[in-house]
């Protein structure tokens, strides 16, 4: 198991504005094209991305959140184990006092059958996710979430200064 050694931007000059997003796979998922695609999408919108890559256990996620202080955690899962793995990951974040409020979302192909049922979505939200994006939704809801969060983060920064 290796620590994160730093973020490699995929785009040559990602705009230095916007959110710092910690992008991560879940513990049992070895897929990476979904993570590469999302990193590009976020960088194109001017966000800075720390991509933890695949197979991230909850402890590594907690350590990385403390090291990187992201504005948002985005978990992506496509191997069908997104619900149990996502639950364990978000529970680890919410147990940590300093990370309990950190905005955290999950999306992808979450259930074995593809789209998770409403009970599973509710379970994920109750465990601490701020939003759940299913495969059927497309990218628009995540995009809207990011825009809202970026505006809120900018406002908070102005008020704090």
């Amino acid at each position: 198991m290796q620590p994160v050694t730093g973020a490699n931007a995929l785009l040559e000059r990602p705009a230095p504005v916007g959110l710092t997003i910690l992008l991560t796979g879940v513990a049992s998922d070895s897929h990476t094209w979904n993570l590469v695609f999302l990193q590009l999408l976020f960088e194109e919108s001017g966000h800075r991305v720390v991509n933890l890559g695949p197979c991230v256990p909850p402890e590594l996620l907690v350590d990385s959140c403390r090291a990187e202080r992201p504005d948002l955690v985005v978990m992506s899962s496509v191997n069908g184990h997104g619900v149990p793995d996502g639950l364990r990951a978000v529970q680890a974040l919410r147990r940590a006092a300093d990370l309990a409020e950190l905005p955290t979302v999950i999306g992808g192909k979450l259930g074995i059958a593809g789209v998770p049922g409403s009970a599973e979505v509710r379970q994920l939200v109750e465990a601490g996710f701020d939003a759940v994006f299913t495969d059927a939704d497309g990218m628009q809801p995540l995009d809207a979430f990011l825009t809202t969060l970026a505006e809120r983060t900018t406002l908070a920064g102005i008020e704090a200064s």
Partner: protein
Amino acid sequence: MTSTQPRPVLLTGSFGGYVRAAAAAGQLVVQPRMGMSAPAAMRAGLLATRDARAVTIGTITLDSYTRVGDHAAVADTLARGIDLNGYPIVHFAGDTNDALLDGLLGTGFPIQVRHGSAAPGAIFAAIGQAGLAASEGGPVSYCLPYGRTALTDSVRHWAAACETFASAAAGLEPHLETFGGCMMGQLCPPSLLVAISVLEAMFFRQHGIRSISLSYAQQTNAVQDQQAIAALRRLATELLPDVDWHVVLYTYMGVYPASPEGACILLEESARLAVRSGAERLIVKTVAEAHRIPTVAENVFALETAAAAAGDERSLSYPAVDDGEVYAEARALVAAVLDCSADLGRALRTAFAKGYLDVPYCLHPDNAGRSRSYLDSDGQLRWAVTGAMPIPGRRAERAGHRLSSANLLSWLTYVGRKFDSIAVAARLSRPELAGGASARPAPTPDQGLVPASRRSTFA
């Protein structure tokens, strides 16, 4: 295409010898990716593979808990009555594995164990104990793309496992296949795939293995793929003089056509590529693979479809393709690594640390992550940025070649879309071919096994 030649029956248990004999007889060996949780289902799959109308090798693909060494999770999952996504050969070591293979060992039907582990010691021990002698992987290809194991640890594990494997198989010839020609599944330019495949073969050889296959996965352009396999063969000839080697081609591993016809035509295309390029063995993909774990009947259909297409292709004449720039680039990459150290494991570690090998879009912390590839307008994979690798990049000038989320998505789905279009065109122009060129209907998931009584001939 029909033939009355019998399957080569080899009593030596030599995987490499079986493939060599088939090649000498002008037959492509075809093999599934099959792996079932339950021993009875796994055995049925092996028997159906053996009895398919094709020259076949059996496959036991392991589950992902065994892959990561979580044998407690195997026991726990099975105790709860839940199927794994492959066969847990370590958990079933002993009587269960013996029963699985009862009557199959020593009959001239080779079986390969496929796993994906960066720490394969326990798996190799179970393979040897079961009386099998063929597996696959490699210190780079089973490490970088899929997980978080450090490359240093993977190299150490693989060196030890190779040496155990080389000495343990009593009366059998241990055989290992490199998975390096399949890195990332898609969008890795062929020269790097060829280089890693050759380097992993040299690593196996350095650790005592003398029968080796070198993999290459079908990419986005048939001419470029043919150049790549020619380059792979030329480098293997130059660098593995005292090894019994052959080339194994993988049917496209990226995003697959959505239509069954498109999937079938892509599979046939890979079999034709294997024949044109002289690859001796083909790992097939089923129509269902993209959606779920395929049934035995779907696997048999894929094997027979590929074998039929290969037979058709062999009756044609086709111009030889030179190895072009793929050879020059792959040779430069291999030379840069060999310059790092006489010890292949150390050389591979140094080469990745310095970025002499740099897999595009690979997120592993031990990969430099500076290289970028793109899909050219002619469907060939190109280097845009090569970082510290000793090969030239060419800055992508066209908008469609620059890295963006939209372009990446279009590159990842290019082959799937292309073969779906071909299927539509074929359906419009020749409706009688609407099941793929073989004009045989694909089995539906609920369809049972085809009768296994047809003891295979060279169909």
